[in-house]
């Protein structure tokens, strides 16, 4: 069939956004999307299923032909472990504190970056650099900077006659050190995402409000903030998911220490499974972790995501 003939066979009717198509075209969307589905399922379905199954066994890499199903015993062990509360609290602490601080500072930075002046494009791109640097490099560098004796942070604090805290050795400061090092990449990340939202606020609304006598603070509170709410939700969600899976930044900086002071769920799953070879127990911790992540995502959705 020639193209014009094809065209004659096309019937276009709009029903709620859907277009009726001829036979080969009807399947196009399927064919476009199914490779993704096939690949995701092919790669992850079996490992996910295995992980779920492992959570109910006492599989240990060292005695791997000697395992059996133990029902919920792993979960009972988790319930009995002394450090469980600490680990979960550490995780929540990291995610809430880091996400909040980064959202706040990120918004401030974004407001600055929204300035329409020359060379703002270059400045915005330079702020992208921390995000673009390999996390392992970032982690090793911050470890050197936080070193109690040889690190620059304490050195410069000393030069300014400020107290030089024991960053990596004090249980109370270990997590703050992790959060600070995360902010170095997190604040620019949030700023770039929020900048989009800020640039999208229509000028005429702001001008109208200014004409009506609203001051900058009121414009911010009643116009800008609500407008960027959807963007804020996406940004905070993405950042929180990243914080849950934060690995090198903690393992390299503090190894989860001192003791368990900076161990998060992700790090603990890693230790249990890969260092101590207790794969069954690690999988159970993984299930607990998914529960925490799912709950947090829901909480975030109800707080920020629902549009009025």
């Amino acid at each position: 069939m020639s193209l014009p003939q094809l065209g004659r066979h096309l019937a276009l009717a709009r029903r709620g956004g859907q277009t009726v198509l001829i036979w080969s075209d009807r399947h196009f969307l399927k064919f476009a999307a199914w490779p993704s589905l096939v690949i995701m399922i092919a790669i992850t379905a079996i490992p996910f299923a295995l992980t779920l199954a492992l959570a109910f066994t006492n599989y240990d890499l060292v005695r791997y032909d000697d395992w059996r199903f133990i029902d919920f015993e792993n979960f009972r062990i988790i319930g009995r472990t002394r450090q469980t509360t600490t680990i979960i609290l550490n995780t929540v602490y990291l995610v809430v504190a880091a996400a909040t601080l980064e959202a706040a500072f990120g918004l401030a930075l974004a407001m600055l970056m929204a300035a329409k002046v020359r060379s703002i494009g270059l400045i915005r791109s330079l702020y992208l650099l921390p995000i673009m640097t390999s996390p392992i490099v970032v982690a090793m560098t911050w470890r050197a900077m936080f070193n109690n004796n040889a690190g620059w942070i304490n050195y410069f604090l000393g030069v300014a006659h400020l107290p030089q805290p024991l960053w990596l050795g004090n249980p109370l400061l270990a997590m703050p050190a992790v959060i600070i090092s995360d902010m170095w990449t997190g604040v620019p990340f949030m700023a770039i995402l929020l900048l989009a939202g800020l640039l999208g606020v229509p000028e005429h609304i702001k001008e109208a409000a200014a004409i009506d006598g609203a001051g900058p603070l009121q414009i911010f509170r009643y116009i800008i903030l609500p407008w960027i709410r959807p963007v804020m939700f996406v940004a905070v969600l993405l950042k929180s998911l990243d914080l849950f899976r934060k690995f090198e930044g903690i393992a390299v900086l503090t190894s989860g220490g001192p003791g368990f002071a900076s161990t998060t769920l992700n790090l603990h799953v890693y230790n249990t499974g890969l260092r101590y070879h207790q794969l069954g127990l690690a999988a159970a911790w993984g299930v607990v972790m998914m529960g925490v992540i799912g709950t947090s995502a829901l909480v975030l959705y109800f707080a920020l995501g629902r549009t009025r």
Partner: protein
Amino acid sequence: MKWQREKFLVLLIALALLAAACSTDDGYEGVELTLMTYASTTEFDYYATLMDDFTRETGIKVNYVQQPVAAQDQKIPLLLAAKDPSLDVFFTGSENIGSYVGVSGVLPLDSFISDSNLTPESWDFADLAPAILNACQNGGVTYCIPSHAGGGLLYYNTRMFEEAGITAPPKNPDELLDYAKRLTTDEHAGFCVRGDNTQNLYTAFQLWQWFYPYDNDVTGTYFDKDWNFIIGQQPNANEFGSWYREILQKTAPAGIATYLVTNCLEDFQQGRVAMWHDDSGMIPEVLDPEKSRVSEETAFWSLPCQAVNPDNCTLVQPFGTWINAASENPEAAWLLVQFLTSKETQIAAAIDGSLLTPSRVSVVNNPEVVASLPATFTEALDHILAHPDAALLPFIPEGVAILPPMLNGLSELITSGDSVDEVMARMTAGVEEIMKAAGYPKPFPEG
């Protein structure tokens, strides 16, 4: 011309067979082996330079892979358990023997050793120091060939000793604690060991040799033959716990609770700590003026055994050369293992300064090697080899499984406010729970 073509084909086939017959005489031409070991470590950096010689001698090509500690320690068990044939030979600490044998991941080596076609007399198996070889044997079967016998010893700074008026290194834990206190000044701390709960067992083990008895060659200072956990038994547990807490809370660098081996090493190299107890393998790092500011003022010492453990009080932790059970070229792999652990290789490595604690008796006593070793070290090494405890982890499959409660307990001794009593009791309970879940008490295994 069919018959001419046939003749030609027959000739080709004959030539091919001839060629094949000839090449089998060479044995291992074209075989490729993969070896995995640790990166940035002087001993293994040295062996890497020998691989061309090995290829020249045997025709076997070696992929010499060095990776970071974490990668090596975590991937090897994965590869062994998955029976991955891409790994042939590897180096790791011998304390893993329990887990490797548990998954049948490594080849027993006795049949290779006694095969005179593969192993010439000159290689001299008997030359390997028995105390060290012991750590590579399980149930009477040899699973690895030890390359070096890292020993736990005390590194100390002679200048700081002089300044504090101390004339000789300490002879017992009380003196050690006392000197550490005197050596704690504004410029430097007194004593350092690994404090982080990912690495602290290695050094704590060296220290508790002065507080606990050595029961037997299979479970060392960990369990007696009735499976009682020695480390938890009072009054030794409280004695050790209080001493460990005091020396690390009062005389160690700030932040000791997160100290890894690199932190103590760097502090010592930079003249920030006076005494440091750890593996002898780092002597080259400390004596190299390119890396260390204290290369001229470092000496070494092995504390004498205390009454509670008079014969086996020094950590001897051999690094073993192992062959993956799933290797596709076990005989070629054995040739590589022989090469790496031969007398010639060890002497050369020792003189080069990258292997200071060779596993061969003849090499330790070789005059050239002795002349190249640092002064105070030879005395310490003799003492270490004479009183070895090679059971860094008990030689049972659960060796790795009992680590978490011990590592965490040791960390809690310096970080938590709970009494020593409580911490040690918790450690014991944790270990006992794991042993019980694994089915103990079981019949005691043979050495």
